[in-house]
């Protein structure tokens, strides 16, 4: 039996440069960065991407106080996706709705806050909050969405480092095809800038971005790039089987055409271009496509000296036999690395290309690194495309996990 076709019917997001798809897209085409300088506990000021959505749009003050930032981001994105989809939640069988959210990590923020809290009381653990455990369980962001929306189907997170955003969507497609659920809220979220540990870890790894102008700190493929800008964000989609979406006359943003998830099995942090290329190739094959069918590649590149080169090697290798290269861009140059949200958020920023036929650029390239000078790279200014029928979205993560997701323009 042919598997069901799976489509995207709603998008809710918050990024450092936009709290809706329209605002996000507008800023991506206008070259507007969302990176500012923030105070990081124990570490002083660093560039980071923070979101400005109103958490009280969908939560009470008490819920914001008890919950986590990742939970709040998730609720905002899920509610916005619901509104965008036109679905009537109350008319749905809520036990048949799945919530699948990719996360890079969860719990570090809350644990650090409590350690700091008890440090004010001579480390007496009787001052440790009883909210710690529900805040730090790995399913927290998805669980907060289920509580907020009264959804009683499966709600959990998928831990996959920075490959996780894609994997929320991939998992949703799988569960819809298996018939486990009839509707999914899927994507990825991150609250990472609230933890000093991730800044300190990347700093010790010599992989934390620094620049006097924070809007120029995230600069994938530029010769002067010096590391990652840590950002928060979220992007959640409503995902449905095509027949269900069509039956209710839903707007369809795109169709999940194919995907691949694989592992390097070579290093804790260093990427492996051979396995990345394999992931891309397998995703194209899974979509029933050839390299000629890919029109836009959104890179994972995080602005680290080595990682960007490795991905360029992988992409150049996969597409080396094409006469005309696909368009290649990077969204982190605007918003930094939104970690677990990255795959989902970066995809959203590119989906409008199906209709407006514009490719958003990679900004902050003053001097293109010759080792990143791959054919098709859209540098600093948006470019018009004759057609965009497919987007290949890369997201890679530590411990060598790779995810590639291909979305195609919907054609009945």
């Amino acid at each position, binding site marked *: 039996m042919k598997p069901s076709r799976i489509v995207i019917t709603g998008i809710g997001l918050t990024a450092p440069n936009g709290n809706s798809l329209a605002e996000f897209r507008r800023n991506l085409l206008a070259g507007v960065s969302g990176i500012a300088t923030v105070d990081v506990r124990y570490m002083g000021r660093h560039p980071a991407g923070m979101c400005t959505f109103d958490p009280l749009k969908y939560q*009470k*003050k008490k819920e914001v*106080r008890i919950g986590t930032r990742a939970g709040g981001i998730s609720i905002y994105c899920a509610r916005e996706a619901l509104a965008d989809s036109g679905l009537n939640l109350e008319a749905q069988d809520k036990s048949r709705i799945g919530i699948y959210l990719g996360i890079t990590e969860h719990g570090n923020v809350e644990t650090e806050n409590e350690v700091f809290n008890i440090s004010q009381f001579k480390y007496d653990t009787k001052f440790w909050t*009883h*909210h710690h455990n529900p805040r730090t369980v790995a399913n927290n962001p998805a669980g907060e969405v289920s509580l907020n929306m009264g959804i009683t189907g499966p709600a959990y997170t998928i831990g996959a480092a920075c490959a996780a955003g894609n994997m929320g969507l991939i998992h949703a497609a799988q569960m819809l095809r298996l018939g486990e659920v009839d509707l999914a809220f899927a994507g990825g979220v991150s609250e990472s800038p609230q933890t000093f540990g991730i800044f300190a870890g990347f700093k010790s790894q010599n992989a934390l971005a620094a620049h006097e102008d924070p809007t120029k700190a995230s600069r994938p493929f530029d010769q002067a790039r010096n590391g990652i800008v840590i950002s928060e964000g979220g992007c959640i989609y409503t995902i449905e089987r095509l027949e269900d979406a069509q039956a209710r006359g839903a707007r369809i943003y795109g169709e999940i055409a194919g995907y691949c998830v694989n592992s390097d099995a070579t290093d804790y942090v260093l990427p492996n271009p051979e396995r990345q290329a394999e992931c891309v190739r397998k995703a194209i094959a899974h979509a029933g496509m050839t390299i000629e069918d890919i029109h836009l590649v959104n890179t994972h590149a995080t602005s680290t000296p080595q990682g960007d080169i490795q991905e360029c090697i992988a992409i150049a290798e996969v597409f080396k036999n094409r006469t005309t290269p696909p368009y290649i861009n990077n969204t982190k140059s605007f918003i930094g690395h939104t970690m677990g949200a990255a795959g989902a958020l970066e995809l959203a920023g590119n989906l409008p290309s199906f209709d407006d036929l514009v490719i958003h650029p990679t900004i902050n390239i003053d001097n293109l690194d010759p080792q990143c000078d791959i054919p098709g790279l859209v540098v600093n200014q948006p470019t018009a495309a004759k057609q965009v029928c497919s987007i290949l979205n890369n997201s890679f993560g530590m411990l060598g996990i790779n995810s590639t997701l291909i979305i195609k323009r919907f054609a009945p």
Partner: protein
Amino acid sequence: MTKDNCKKLVIDIISDIAPDEDLSAIKPDIRLRDQLQLDSMDFLDIVMELRKRHGIEVPEADYGQLASLQSCADYLTPKFVPKA
């Protein structure tokens, strides 16, 4: 510490624990949970804040003493020790 001052300090804590609630007309003799959206986790928060802000320990066996604003004042006022 007077009982009226103690009530104000308790209301300060509740305003942080239950920030959506209107605390302007709390009836002192009615159970807090009967007039406010407070659950058992919120009471744990109140106990924690009494510990943090005022150094007051409320043993679990005495949680019932925090039922109403008046019972809070009756129970907690003697526990406020003037700082030397």
